[in-house]
C-alpha cells in the first residue's frame, strides 16, 4: 500500500545512493580493480587506461549531479539563519 510513491522511501533511497556513490568510485578507481584496464591497447587512438580513468571520473560527476537535486530537497531548511545577527562592517 505504500510502495513506490512513498516519499519517505524515495528520500531514503536517494540518501543511500549518496552514501554509496563515493564507495563505488573508490572501488572503480583504486587497485586492484583499476589494474584491469592497464593494457597496451588504444580506443580512438587514446590509451585504454586514460579513457577508463576519465570516463569513471565524468560518470561520478554525472551521478552526483543527478543526485544533487533530490538530496538538496532532502536537506532540512536552515535551522538558524546566521546572517541576521551579522553586524555591519566596521
Amino acid at each position, binding site marked *: 500500500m505504500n510502495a513506490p510513491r512513498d516519499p519517505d522511501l524515495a528520500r531514503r533511497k536517494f*540518501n543511500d545512493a*549518496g*552514501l554509496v*556513490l*563515493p*564507495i563505488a*568510485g*573508490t572501488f572503480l*578507481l*583504486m*587497485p586492484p580493480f*583499476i*589494474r584491469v584496464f*592497464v593494457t*597496451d591497447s*588504444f580506443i*580512438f*587512438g*587514446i*590509451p585504454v*587506461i*586514460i579513457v577508463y*580513468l*576519465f570516463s569513471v*571520473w*565524468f560518470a*561520478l*560527476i*554525472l*551521478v*552526483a*549531479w543527478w*543526485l*544533487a*537535486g533530490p*538530496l*538538496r530537497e532532502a*536537506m*532540512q*531548511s*536552515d*535551522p*538558524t539563519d*546566521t*546572517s*541576521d*545577527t*551579522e*553586524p*555591519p*562592517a*566596521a
Partner: protein
Amino acid sequence: MLSANLLLFICLSYVALLFLVAFVVDRRAQRDRIGWLQSPLVYTLSISIYCTSWTFYGAVGSAARSGLEFATIYLGPTLVFVGWWWILRKLVRIGRLHRITSIADLISSRFGKSPTLAVFVTLIAVIATTPYIALQLQSVTLSYRVISGNTEAAGLNDGVTAFWVAAGMALFTILFGTRNVTANERHHGVVAAIALEALVKLFALIAVGLFAIYGVAGGLSEVFSRVTPEMLHADEVFGSRWIALTFLSATAIICLPRQFQVTVVENVDEKHLATASWLFPLYLVMLSVFVLPIAVAGLIQMPVGSNPDMFVLTLPLSTGQEGLAAFAFIGGFSSATSMVIVAAIALSTMVSNHIVMPVALKVSQSDYYTSGDVRRLLLTSRRISIAAILMLGFIYFRLTGGSEGLASIGLIAFAGTAQVLPGAVGGVMWRGATRYGALAGLAAGFAAWAYMLLIPSFRAEYAVIDAFVALGPWGIDMLRPEAFLGVSILDPLVHALFWSLSANTLLFVIVSLVTNPTPLERLQGALFVDVFRMRPGEPPRVIHRTAPVEDLFVLAQRILGAEPARLLFRDIARSQGIHDGLPNADDAFVSRLERELAGSVGAASAHAMVSQVAGGGTISLTELMEIADETAQILEYSQQLTEKSAELESTARQLRDANTKLQKLSAQKDDFLSQVSHELRTPMTSIRSFSEILLETPDVHSERAQRFLSIINEECLRLTGLLNEILDLSFLESGKVSWTLVPVDPEAALDRALDSISVLAEKNGVRIDIVERAGNVFVMADFGRLTQVFLNILNNSVKYNTVDTPRIEVRSRLQEGNYVVSITDNGPGIPASDSETIFSKFGRGGGRQDVGGSGLGLAISREILRKFEGDVVLVADSGPGATFEIRLPASK
C-alpha cells in the same frame, strides 16, 4: 621573452583589478547588495583555491615525470565531494550551528572547548602551511624568472621578487581579510576576488592545453599516439602510492585550514554544498584533462633536461606565443595568490583566536572585559599574524632555496595536515572520543610526520640531516626516519603516512577508550555527533548559569562592537517578550551569547570569557553530568518522537473528520424520524377519532357509519402509500439498487404517464397541452421507474395548481445530447428560496400541508433520475407558474 617592465605592468594591473573587485564587493556587502555573490557558483569557485600553483605548474611536471600519478591529487577531492552526504554535510551543519571559525576551533569545540587542543592544532596548521606558502612564492618567482628570460642581471633577484610578492599578498589580505570581526568570519570581498581568480586560472590552463594539443602536437590523436606505456608509468603507478596519494588529497580537502575556511566557515547556505558536490569535481576534471596533453607536448617540443614544472610557460614561449605565455603567467599568479590569501586569513584567525586571545585573558585575568577593547586586540593580532605567516613562508623559501620539485613540498604539507583527520572526523562521528585521545593521537602523528617527512626534507641543504636520515640518530639503524623499525616501504611518503596515521588513529582510539570525558565534552560530543537529530532552531540549552546582564552586555560590546551588540541584545530581548531594555540573563540567553561570541573569538575563548562573567565555575559536577546524559537521551529519542507524533496527528485528524460526518448524519436521521412521525400522526389521528366515534355510539346511523368507514379506509390507504414511499426512498438511498439499465423510449414512458394522469386532471379541471415532442430518442433507464418520475411531477403540477383555469404545458426535446422534458403549470409558482428544499424529504413548497401527498415524491424522483445519471430541477424565473425540467443523457 617579455620585458620585465611589461610583465610588471601586467601583474600590477591584475592586482589592481583584484583590489577593485574586493573593494567594490565589500562596499556592496555593507549595503546588503550581494545576492549574486551568495550563489552556489561563487561558493564552488572559492573552493577551487584547492588548485594552487602546485596544480597549475606542478601537475604538468608530475605528469611528465610520473605519468598518471598527478590525477590522484584531484581524485581524492572528487570522491570526498561526490560523497558529501557522508562528512562534508555534517561539518557544514556543525560549523553553522556552533559558529565554528576554523578547523582548530572545530576540534577544540568538540572536545569540551579545550584551549590546549586549539593551540596544538593551530601550531600544526602553521607548521604544515609554511612550506606550502613557500611553495607558492617559489612558483611565482620561478615563473617570473622564466617568462622574463632570467633577468637577474637587470637587478631583480629571486629574493627581491619573492619579498615583494609576499608583501603585496600580506597587504591585500590585511586590507580585505581583517576588516572586521564578523559573526561568522565571512569575507565577501576576498571570496569575490578568489572566485575571479579561479576562473582566470581555469581559462589560462585550458588555453595552454588547447594550444598544446592543436598548436604544438597537431591534434588530439597526434598527442596520444606519442603516449607510451612508459610515459604513463601505468604498470607501477597503481600501487600503494596511488592509494596513499588519493587518501592524502581526500584528507587535505577536508582538513587544510584554507579549505575548511572556504567550505565550512564561508558557507552561507548549506544547500550550496549540493551544487558544489558535482561542480567542484567538474572544475577539477576540466583542469586535469589538459594536464597530460601539455606534458606530452612539452616532452616533444622542449629540449631534454628542461624543467617540466614550467612547461605551462615554456611551451608557449618556445613557439613565440608571448600573449598566451603572459596569460598563463597570470593564471599561475592567480592560483598562488588566492591560496596564500585564504590560507593567511584562516591561519591568522586561528592564531588570534586560539593563541593571542587566551594569552591576553591570562595576562589581564582580573578585569579583562571591562578594560581594553577586545575587538581591536583581535584585529591587530590578526593583522600581525598575517604578516608573520607570510614572513615565515618567505624565510622557509630562502632557507630551502626552492630546490625541490613543487609537488613534493605540497605532499609534505598535505601529510602534516592529515594528522588532524582522526580528531576531526572521529570527533564528529564517534561520541566516545575524548580530549586526551585526540591530544595523544595528534601528538604521535605530528611527531612521526616531523621525524619521517619534515626533517628529511632538509637533507639536501644540510649534511647533518642527510647523515641523520641515511644512518638513523646516533647511527641506530632501527630508528632510520625512512625505514622505521626496519619496515621497508620504498616510498618515503607512503612510509611516513603509514606510521604517522597508524600511530595517530591507534592512540586516538585507545586513549579515548581508557579515559573519561569531562561533562562538557560529553555534551559537546552529543551535540556534534547527533547534529542531524536536533530539531531546527536552538540546540538544547544546557548549563545553568546566571550573570548580571549588564556585564554580559559590556562583554559583547567589547567583542562584537557597540552597535551589533546592541542589535543582538535587542533581538534576544524581543524574543523574550521584552520591548524595552536589556533581556533577562537566563540559561538560553547565556548559551546563545556564548555561541555568538564563539563566531568571533572561537569556542574555547568565548567559553572562558562567558564562564568568568557568568560564574561557570559554580556548576556542580553532578549537575553537568545529568545534563550531558539527558541531552544525549533527548537527542536519541527526539527523532522517534517526531515521527510518532506526526503519525498520531494524522490519525486524530481523520477521527475528527469521521466524527463530524457521523454527527451530521445523526442529525439528519433525527430530523427525518421526527418528520415521518409527524406525517404518520395526521392520518392516524383521524382514523382513531372516527373509529372511537363508531365504537362509543352504537346507534350510529348506518349511512353515517358507512361514511366514517370510508374515511378510515381512505386514511389507511394514504398511510400505506406513505409507508411505501418511505420504504422506496430508503431503498433507493441505501445504494443497494442494482437496476439493469436498458435503452428505453422515454417518449413512450411520458405517454404512459400522461395517460395515467388524464383522469385526475379531468377531475380537477386541469387542461394538459402537449406543446412539443422530441420524437425518436432512447435513454438508458428503467421503463417503470421513468414513468413513475413523470407521473410524480405531473401529479404535483395538477395537485398544487389552484388557479381558476388550471393549465399544464408539456414539452420534450433534445438539447446538447440530453433528452429534456419540461412541465410548466400556471399555478401559484414556487419561491426561489424553496427551489432546493422542495427536493428534500417532506419539503413541500411554501410549507403547504393542505394538499394530499407525502412530500416524498420529488425526493424519490430526483433519487431515481440520479441513478440514470440525469436530474430534475426547478427552472428559475420561469414565469407565474413553476417549470420542472427533467434531463437524461440521450444514448447514441
